[in-house]
C-alpha cells in the first residue's frame, strides 16, 4: 500500500526512489540476492553480450498505437466531412454513435467556469471516465491524443539533433504540471472563462483536423519548437493538465504494464524510450518491491518499453485476469 501511494505521489511530482526493506517482499529480497550471486552475474553478462550480438527490434506496439491515434482522429474527420454520424464533435466533447462523451478536463473547467452542473456533460464525462478507468487513464495520451503523435515525431527529431550534439535536453520539475493544473482550475472558477482551453494544443489540433486549419496552430508549432530544440516532450511531461486528469482517472486501472524482476537484466533501455521514465525506476537494480509489479498510475500504456525490452520483462496485462488465465 505504501509503495502504491509512492507511485501515486510520483504522478504528482515526487522523485522516484528505491523500495525500502519494509516495502520489499521476501520474494523480491531473495530474488535480488540471487541475482547478485557470481554465477548469475556471469549469466547476465553473457545474456547482455548475446543481445548486442543478435539485436532484436520490435515496433509492434508502436505501430498499433499510431494506427489507433490515426484511426480515431480520422473517424472524427470522416464523420463530419462525409456526414456519417459515427463520432460527431471533437476531442473536447463528442457523440459516439449518439452516446455523449466529454473530456473530463474540459468538462471540469466548463463546470467551474459556468458554476452549474449540466446533465449531458455529466453523462458524457462519466462515460469517458469509466472507459478510461478500464484501459488506464493516460492511455488516452498515447492511444488517442493527436498532439502526442506529432510530439513523438518532434521527439524523434530532438533525439537525432541530440545525438549530433546540436541540442541539449533541459528537464523541468514534474510538480509543475500539478501546480498548473490547480492554477488553471482556479482561473476557470475565478475568471469565469475556460482559460486553459486557450492554450490547449489537444483541442486546437483536434479542431483544426476536423474543421480546418486555424491561426491557433502557430501556438502548437511554438510548443513543438520547444520540444525539438529545448526540452524533450516538454508539454506532455511537465505541463499538460489533461494528462494529469486522465492519470487520476486511471489511477487503479485494470489494464497495466507488468514488470517481471526475474527476467530483467537492468540495462535501462526501457527508461530511455519512456515518456514518463520515473515510473520505470523500479527496473533499476534493487529498486523493485516485488518480483512482479505493475508500473503504476502515471504510465501512458504506450508499450514502447515492451517493444524495446530484449528480455520480455515488461508486458501488458489485465489486473486480476492474468491470474485466472
Amino acid at each position, binding site marked *: 500500500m505504501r509503495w502504491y501511494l509512492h507511485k501515486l505521489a510520483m504522478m504528482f511530482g515526487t522523485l522516484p526512489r528505491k523500495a525500502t526493506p519494509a516495502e520489499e517482499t521476501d520474494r523480491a529480497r531473495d530474488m535480488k540476492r540471487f541475482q547478485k550471486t557470481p554465477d548469475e552475474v556471469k549469466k547476465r553478462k553473457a545474456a547482455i553480450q548475446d543481445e548486442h550480438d543478435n539485436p532484436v527490434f520490435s515496433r509492434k506496439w508502436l505501430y498499433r498505437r499510431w494506427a489507433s491515434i490515426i484511426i480515431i482522429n480520422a473517424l472524427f474527420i470522416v*464523420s*463530419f466531412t462525409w456526414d456519417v454520424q459515427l463520432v*460527431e*464533435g*471533437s476531442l*473536447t*466533447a*463528442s*457523440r459516439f454513435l449518439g452516446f*455523449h462523451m*466529454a*473530456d473530463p478536463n*474540459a*468538462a471540469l473547467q*466548463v463546470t467551474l*467556469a*459556468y*458554476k*452549474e452542473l*449540466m446533465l*449531458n*456533460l455529466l453523462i*458524457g464525462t462519466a462515460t469517458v471516465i469509466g472507459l478510461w478507468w478500464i484501459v488506464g487513464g493516460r492511455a488516452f495520451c498515447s492511444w488517442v491524443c493527436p498532439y502526442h503523435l506529432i510530439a513523438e515525431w518532434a521527439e524523434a527529431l530532438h533525439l537525432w539533433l541530440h545525438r549530433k550534439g546540436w541540442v541539449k535536453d*533541459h*528537464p*523541468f*520539475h514534474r*510538480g*509543475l504540471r500539478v*501546480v*498548473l493544473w490547480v*492554477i*488553471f482550475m482556479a*482561473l*476557470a472558477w475565478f*475568471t*469565469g*472563462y*475556460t*482559460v*486553459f*482551453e*486557450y*492554450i490547449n494544443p489537444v*483541442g*486546437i489540433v483536434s*479542431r483544426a483536423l*476536423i*474543421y480546418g486549419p*486555424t*491561426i*491557433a496552430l*502557430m*501556438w502548437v508549432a511554438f510548443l513543438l519548437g520547444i520540444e525539438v530544440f529545448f526540452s524533450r516532450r*516538454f508539454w506532455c511531461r*511537465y*505541463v499538460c493538465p489533461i494528462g494529469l486528469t486522465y492519470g487520476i482517472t486511471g489511477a487503479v486501472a485494470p489494464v497495466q504494464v507488468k514488470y517481471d524482476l526475474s527476467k530483467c537484466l537492468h540495462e535501462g533501455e526501457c527508461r530511455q524510450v519512456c515518456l514518463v521514465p520515473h515510473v520505470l525506476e523500479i527496473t533499476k537494480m534493487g529498486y523493485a518491491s516485488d518480483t512482479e509489479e505493475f508500473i503504476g498510475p502515471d504510465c501512458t500504456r504506450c508499450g514502447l518499453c515492451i517493444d524495446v525490452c530484449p528480455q520480455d520483462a515488461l508486458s501488458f496485462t489485465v489486473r486480476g485476469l492474468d491470474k485466472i488465465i
Partner: protein
Amino acid sequence: MTDAPETPAKPKKRLTRRELERRRMLMRSVGAGFAAVAASLVGLYPVMTRIFDRLRPPGAIPEKQFLAACIKCGQCVQVCPVEAIKLGDGDEGYGLGVPYIDARKQACDFSCDAVQCVLACPTGALTHDIATKEEVDIGFARLARPDACLAMKGDGFKGLARGADFEGLLRYEEIDRWDPQPVASYEYDLEICDLCVRECPIENAISLEPVSDDPDDKRRMPVVHEACVGCGTCEMMCPTEPAAIVVDTGLALARGEA
C-alpha cells in the same frame, strides 16, 4: 602579528554540479509555469476589449456565460444544414473554438426546421429551453444604412441578390423544402426591392411600410418588429454593398450601442 583574531571569512558554499543543475531546473520550472499562465491569459484581451462582437448560434445564453459553458467541440457546426456556424480562432481570445454566425456570409435561415444546433449542444451553452425558431434570440435587425436601401429610394431589384460568386445558401420552399439552394442560382425581378421581407423565415418580423401618405410615392421603409429573432437572413439577402440592414448582437443592444 595582530592580537585581534581575524574573523574567518564565511566559507563560500560551493554548489556541486548536481545541486547547480537542480537549482537551474527549478528556476526553469518556475519560469515555464509563469510563461504558461501568461500565455493563457493573453486570451483575456480580445474578450475584454470586445474586438469581436459575434452573433452566436440559436439558443446561446448571454455572452459571458456562453464563453464559460461552451466546451468548444463544434457539434453545432456539424449539424447545421447550411453551415452557418463557424468556430472562432485564436485572435478571438477565449472565443477560440466557440461557435459564431457571420450572417452576411451565411445566415441561419432555419433550413433545419428549428434549432438542430441546440439539440446537438452537449452542455447548456445553447439552452435546451427553446424548441422553435420563433423562440430564438440571436440579436435584432436594424436598418443601419437607410440611404443605401433600395426600397427607401423606391427602387426595384433585378438579378442575383448577391452576385454570381456568392456562396451562401437559402431555403427556397417553392423549389425544394429540404435542400437549401445557392442564393446565386436564383434570379429576382422585383418592382420594389423587398428581399429582406420576402425571404425572412419568421412571420411578422419585418414589413415594408409607406414612407409618406402620398399614394404615388413608391418609397417604402423596412420596419423590424418585435418578432425578429436576429437570424440575419435579411442581412445576407440585402443586395446593397455593404448591407443596408444588419443584425445587432445582444451584447451591443444591452450596451445601447446599436
